[in-house]
């Protein structure tokens, strides 16, 4: 076992490495220092982000590279886009992906389109990191997944790593990429721990990973739910069911090959997605299989998503909204029987 870090500590380490190695990397976001890192208080952060992910950054890099912003998403995301066109590499924290709503023009019409529309004259190397997903009893304005909205827009790259190792290498790859990239961090991942090498490393762009190999069924899953799928797969091993768990890691570009190669081997597939059920990553993967992998299928494609409803607040409602290990196990067994 290597050095253990939590997911959020791995994010912090990636940001520090990126900022140390490239003075053009700056960070903007609401309360990312906290208390605005005021000089009279020694440029210390009160919070280091609402969940401490950016703790210590303003101390190390100063208040000319780490900026607390007003609650004004269009304002600071727009500024980051302009700064990127002028040569900086801003990392922006969108506190929750739900808040994209108040600033969506910058996500829809600005960052991803400017390079194309202006004939390739500019690059817009911004990275957005944002928190998503259920599990904190935060109801419908702080619990959505929504990555499919961004995948839908040409010009964005997107990733949703499921482990501390992957988020560190993924964020470093994102910040150093010349395209707009959005990193989705699931709330339930923040405190999980795992092996994280100390060195600077980058994930391969657009490459997924077989998190567990198997021969009976392919399980494609994203972000936090990869971990649930893995737990179920390990449990089923004892029942002589061999599930292969695929984590595409990158939502855009999507590693089609890793999914199709696995399907070729197993002939059966379950796709798990916490995003809203229509037009999400699961339907996208299902379409991929229908168009490029139909001949490999021995059983209908099966999709597990939440209901077509906003996330509810009460624990019993949220727990049932989410995709539990029991639901995953049941679906796998139904497909195999």
């Amino acid at each position, binding site marked *: 076992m290597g050095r253990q870090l939590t997911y959020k500590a791995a994010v912090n380490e990636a940001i520090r490495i990126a900022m140390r190695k490239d003075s053009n990397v*700056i960070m903007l976001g609401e309360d990312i220092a906290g208390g605005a890192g005021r000089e009279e208080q020694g440029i210390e952060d009160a919070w280091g982000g609402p969940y401490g992910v950016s703790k210590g950054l303003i101390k190390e890099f100063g208040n000319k590279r780490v900026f607390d912003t*007003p609650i004004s998403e269009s*304002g600071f995301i*727009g500024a980051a886009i*302009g700064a990127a066109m*002028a040569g900086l590499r801003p990392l922006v924290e969108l506190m929750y992906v739900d808040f994209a709503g108040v600033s969506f*023009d910058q996500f829809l019409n600005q960052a991803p389109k400017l390079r194309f529309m202006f*004939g390739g004259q500019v690059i817009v190397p911004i990275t957005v990191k944002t928190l998503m997903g259920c599990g904190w009893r935060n109801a419908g304005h702080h619990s959505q997944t929504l990555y499919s909205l961004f995948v839908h827009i*040409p010009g964005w*790259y997107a990733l949703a790593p499921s482990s501390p190792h992957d988020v560190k290498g993924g964020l470093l790859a994102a910040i150093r990429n010349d395209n707009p990239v959005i990193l989705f961090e699931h709330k339930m991942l923040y405190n999980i721990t795992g092996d994280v090498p100390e060195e600077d490393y980058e994930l391969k762009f657009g490459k997924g990973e077989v998190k567990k190999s198997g021969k009976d069924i392919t399980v494609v899953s994203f972000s936090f739910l990869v971990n649930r799928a893995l737990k179920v797969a390990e449990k089923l091993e004892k029942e002589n069911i061999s599930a292969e768990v695929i984590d595409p890691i990158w939502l855009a570009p999507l590693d089609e090959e890793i999914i199709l190669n696995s399907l070729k081997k197993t002939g059966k597939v379950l796709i798990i997605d916490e995003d809203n059920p229509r037009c999400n990553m699961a339907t996208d993967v299902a379409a991929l299989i229908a168009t490029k992998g139909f001949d490999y299928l021995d059983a209908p494609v099966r999709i597990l998503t939440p209901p077509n409803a906003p996330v509810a607040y009460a624990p019993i409602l949220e727990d049932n909204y989410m995709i539990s290990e029991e639901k995953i196990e049941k679906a796998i067994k139904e497909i195999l029987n």
Partner: protein
Amino acid sequence: MDLSSVKLKEMLRQMLTIRYFELSVDRLYREGKIPGGCHLGYGEESTGVGVIAALDENDYVFSNHRGHGHCIAKGLDTKLMMAELQGKATGYCRGRGGSMHIMDVKKRLMGTTGIVGGGIPQANGPALKSLIEGTKEVSVVLFGDGACNQGTFHEALNLASIWKLPSIFVLVNNHYAESTPVEYNCNIKNLADRAISYGIPGVSVDGMNVLEVYKAMSEAVQRARKGEGPTLLVLDTYRYAGHYVGEPEGYRTDKEIEEYRKRDCILNFKKYLIENNILDENEYNLIDAKAKKEIEGAIEFADKSPIPDVSDIDTDVYV
């Protein structure tokens, strides 16, 4: 005022070039040579020219959907602009953008835009870079009275004011947001008062007078370069054309348009230059002919230019 006669004549040349560009686009659009939507700014030449005359080459300008004049004032090539409007491969953006998406990053004209208010917050980006790096470059965004009711306007002014960014916000009040009069859209008479909310100067200017625009803009630039933060300029002006070429109109009277035409920014500037012995009628005619000829050349260039190759349909989406 610190303007040399050479610079004054150059400003006049730019204004005439814009006028001929816009009138030509109006005609070409009606002849079917310009395929998409087009928003013209003739009547307002004084705004872009006066604002940009107060800048250095390295300063950034973000424009809007009525931005041809801003591009010409920033020194963009009218041939490449005309080709872009005609959707030709030789255009600034290789025919991907058209009228609403013209950019020349080398000239630091950071783009016209199709979303009203969409570019306002982006102007703070280069300004933030200047602040971080301690350079003197300022960043300017021009937008209309329609955009000043967008949230982005308020968010951008607030951000620039708290960080004291070298940003300059130029509200070109041409009295109509599409078809809707500014008095209907705004409950205050003096739009520059909006600056009060952000603790920054708000300056009202006769936008039909290019020298007044230049003067107010120069002061704003000076403030920004000294690290004193952003300014809101409100330029009172008028567009002679409709919101877009071919629109039905009907929301303003011919009399109103005539009243503004009497205050035409080019005629008044010419009069000023002649009265102050900077220019005579002959020299004016030469400048006028030069501007006209430039636009004829631009049209010829665009006409002869090839259309894009279909293989270009999805290049440059990603780096």
